[in-house]
């Protein structure tokens, strides 16, 4: 098992970025209590840790300008829901700069998801917001090595990279491997924090004789589906499910559509419901749990079996 968890990996990567690569980290309330969930080293403006004003839209623009100047900024957005204000200049300038003007505007956006009693804006992941814009890479690392890979890619290329993080993954030390059985019943394609629930689901259903393959989607855009993953879906008796921590009417449905075209298999989706979240548990909107995923799997199997019987 690796010595460090994801939180410590991010923190040390940031320290390296500031101390060795003359980089910048920009964001709001970075040096406040907690240091963004413990993912930032205790460094200050003189080191390149830049506290911005609370103007979200402008803050995104400041980071884009710093990127134009070649400082490779890491822009921290403490809650993914705040992207509704932070994203416009990143998406409309940084993502287009290389294509229109031939000038790279390389920056990394660390955007952090979490949920549970935090209301209609702050909760969950919002990577779908970025998905529709050309000129951006989207990743969702949930393990130390995945984050290291993201940073290596960032520092060695000139892309704009959106990193969809999740607070509940910060304690994780394990690398998440795909689960691939022969002759599977169904294949789960899991994004962000749902990857942990997908693995649990697979383990629980295996005990009941249902073989659930799990494919980890870490690189979301451009979407990387390995031959093994594609074959898993082709071999699955009951098709696939895309799991997401964002609203279902976003990346999840896009990926399901792509997978459907690739394999001609039916691919369902499960993610945040199409409703606003309230603060109390009874009105919250949370990512799919293992229980909910199992429920959907049973439903799909039952439906498809009944159709076969009818034919």
């Amino acid at each position: 098992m690796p010595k460090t968890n994801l939180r410590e990996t991010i923190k040390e990567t940031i320290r390296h970025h500031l101390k060795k690569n003359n980089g910048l980290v920009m964001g709001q309330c970075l040096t406040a209590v907690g240091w963004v969930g413990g993912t930032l080293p205790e460094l200050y403006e003189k080191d390149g840790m830049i506290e911005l004003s609370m103007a979200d839209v402008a803050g995104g623009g400041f980071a884009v300008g710093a990127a134009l100047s070649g400082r490779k900024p890491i822009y921290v957005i403490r809650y993914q829901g705040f992207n509704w204000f932070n994203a416009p200049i990143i998406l409309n300038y940084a993502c287009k700069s290389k294509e229109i003007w031939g000038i790279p505007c390389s920056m990394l956006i660390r955007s952090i998801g979490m949920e549970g009693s935090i209301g209609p804006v702050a909760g969950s992941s919002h990577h779908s917001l970025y998905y529709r814009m050309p000129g951006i890479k989207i990743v969702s690392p949930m393990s130390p090595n995945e984050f290291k890979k993201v940073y290596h890619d960032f520092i060695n290329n000139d892309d704009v990279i959106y990193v969809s993080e999740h607070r509940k993954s910060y304690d994780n030390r394990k690398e998440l491997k795909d689960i691939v059985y022969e002759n599977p019943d169904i294949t789960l394609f899991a994004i962000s924090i749902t990857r942990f629930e997908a693995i649990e689901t697979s383990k629980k259903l295996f005990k009941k004789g249902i073989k659930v393959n799990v494919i980890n989607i870490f690189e979301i855009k451009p979407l990387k589906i390995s031959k093994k993953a594609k074959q898993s879906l082709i071999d699955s008796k009951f098709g696939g499910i895309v799991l997401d921590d964002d609203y279902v009417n976003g990346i999840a449905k896009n990926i399901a559509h792509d997978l459907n075209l690739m394999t001609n298999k039916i691919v369902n989706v499960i993610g945040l419901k199409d409703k606003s979240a309230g603060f109390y548990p009874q009105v919250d909107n949370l990512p799919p749990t293992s229980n909910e995923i199992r429920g959907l799997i049973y439903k799909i199997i039952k439906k498809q079996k009944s159709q076969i019987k009818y034919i």
Partner: protein
Amino acid sequence: MKLDKATELLIYEKASLCRAFEEEVFKNLQNKNIKIPVYLSAGQEFIASTFAVFFDKFFPKTKKQIFIQHRGHATYLAFGGDLKKLILELLGSSKGCANGMGGSASIQCREKNIYGHDGLMGSHGPIAVGACFGNNFPTLCFIGDAAAEEDYFLASLGWASTKKLPIWFIVEDNNLSILTEKKVRRNWEMDDVAKSFGLTSFDIEDKPKDIWETFSKNLIKKPCLFNIRTNRLYWHAGAGIDDPNTLDRQKDYITKFGYEIINNAQRKVKKAWNKCQKLI
């Protein structure tokens, strides 16, 4: 510092090139040789021309960066952007200054550090501030009086002031957002807002003498805002005239310096245009 006649002539030469260019574009829009939205800067060219001559004269070797928006042809040309590349851009050539993708609104010049604009009004305010923060180069941000109303632009003034950046915001105040006058849109002035953020600010007319004397008040290391009242001679977009009685500052200069300079500029533009047309 007073503006001497020789320097004023240099400003007029730059402004004449800008004007001659816009008049040629006007004709090419009318005859439909240019088929994209074009934002002509005629009437406003003395602002960029004066700033450009100031920098050429006092800071010729300083690496500066310039951020512009739509209606930026004059700024591009005044600061030395390549004439032919701008023509090719308007004609849609991949050899244009923005690879044929920028049209009129998103032009750039890499050699002169003039950055293109994405079309999101006022977005270049925060971008200019971020770039200035990143490399500490003297930075000029040209913006219209309407785009400057964007909330994120105002927030940029605040952060530039907080960080004491060497940046100058130049508001080209033609009083119009398309055709909506400033008094309809707001009851405040940009220089007052800038002052409240702690910037040094001015509200002046676009007379080169006034701009020159204001800018030469040892401002080079301070974040400043210049609200410069000017006049847009043509439509917001395209080739047309809203008001034929709009003040045209060029007329004073023709009286002062004669027609030779503007005639030379027209010939230069025409020659370049004909060459570019053959490349399309």
